[in-house]
């Protein structure tokens, strides 16, 4: 029987997954269908302990930082809000586990997998590219791997997550803004040479 896969990315028909310049300073790709959860809670010891029991690590309380354990990243959004990114289809089980360990606490776990699109930027020129559309100081002296920020990129509200010190970034953006942001990134990347896919 034919396999039925009805998942369709908001970037379907917009995003390329291969090809482009052979001397690319930027690589751009979608990370489609990742699981995403928003976790809310008071950030107190009891909450952090309960979340730790489900996640394997406590949500980071240092502003603008992210914690990563295996395939799960937990990004600080606010003193009482985190964005959790999981592998495809792993979000429901993780959400249930969180709800279980949080119990009757004043906390919330919301599945936002389909409301956000994840993009991956890599290459030697990603710093210059981001600087064109983001007012935040992303220079290595001010921002580094493992840090994240909710901010504006080309006027779109995004969460930036710096993955490593070789210019790899994940960008999370609202699904309805994703085609716009993809095209902006393509256009802004032209001067550095742009290739699609992870390479």
């Amino acid at each position, binding site marked *: 029987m034919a396999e039925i896969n009805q998942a369709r990315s908001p970037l379907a028909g917009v995003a390329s997954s291969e090809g482009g310049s052979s001397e690319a300073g930027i690589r751009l790709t979608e990370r489609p269908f990742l699981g995403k959860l928003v976790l809310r809670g008071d950030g107190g010891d009891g909450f952090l302990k309960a979340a730790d029991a489900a996640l394997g690590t406590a949500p980071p309380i240092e*502003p*603008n930082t992210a914690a990563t354990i295996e395939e799960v990243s937990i990004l600080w959004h*606010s*003193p009482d809000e985190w964005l959790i990114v999981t592998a495809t289809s792993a979000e429901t089980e993780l959400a249930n586990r969180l709800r279980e360990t949080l119990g009757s606490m004043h906390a919330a776990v919301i599945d936002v997998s389909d409301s956000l699109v994840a993009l991956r930027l890599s290459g030697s020129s990603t710093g210059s590219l981001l600087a064109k559309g983001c007012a935040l*100081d992303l220079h290595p002296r001010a921002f580094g791997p493992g840090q994240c920020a909710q*901010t504006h990129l080309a006027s779109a509200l995004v969460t930036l997550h710096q993955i490593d010190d070789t210019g790899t970034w994940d960008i999370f953006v609202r699904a309805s803004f994703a085609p716009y942001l993809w095209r902006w990134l393509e256009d802004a990347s032209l001067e550095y040479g742009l290739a699609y896919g992870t390479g």
Partner: protein
Amino acid sequence: MLLIECPWCGPRDEAEFAYGGEAHIARPTEPDKLSDAEWAEYLFLASNPRGTYLERWRHAHGCRRWFNAVRDTYTHEIIEIYAMGSLPKSKLGIQAYEDSWRRGSAAEQNAKRGSAKS
């Protein structure tokens, strides 16, 4: 464009923030004890100084938290950022707070009486 220091996220572009208007407007707890004029003073009158101003901001496109700021409306200098529910600590901020016509207003006296009782 202002560079505003969010108490949680750090310095951010003004475009990420929503303006919340004048700070320290206490809501009367017993409005029935105010005259129409006094109630209107609370509801409609806003300070509009050329100089130090106490105002509220929200980091709308970031952590979404509220905070207070002491800002000079003429130079745009942000003199102090302080938490919601607290009072300014800078000299200019304290002076602006104490000099505000609101401190003597019937609406604020009314709000204070109510909070003292509860």
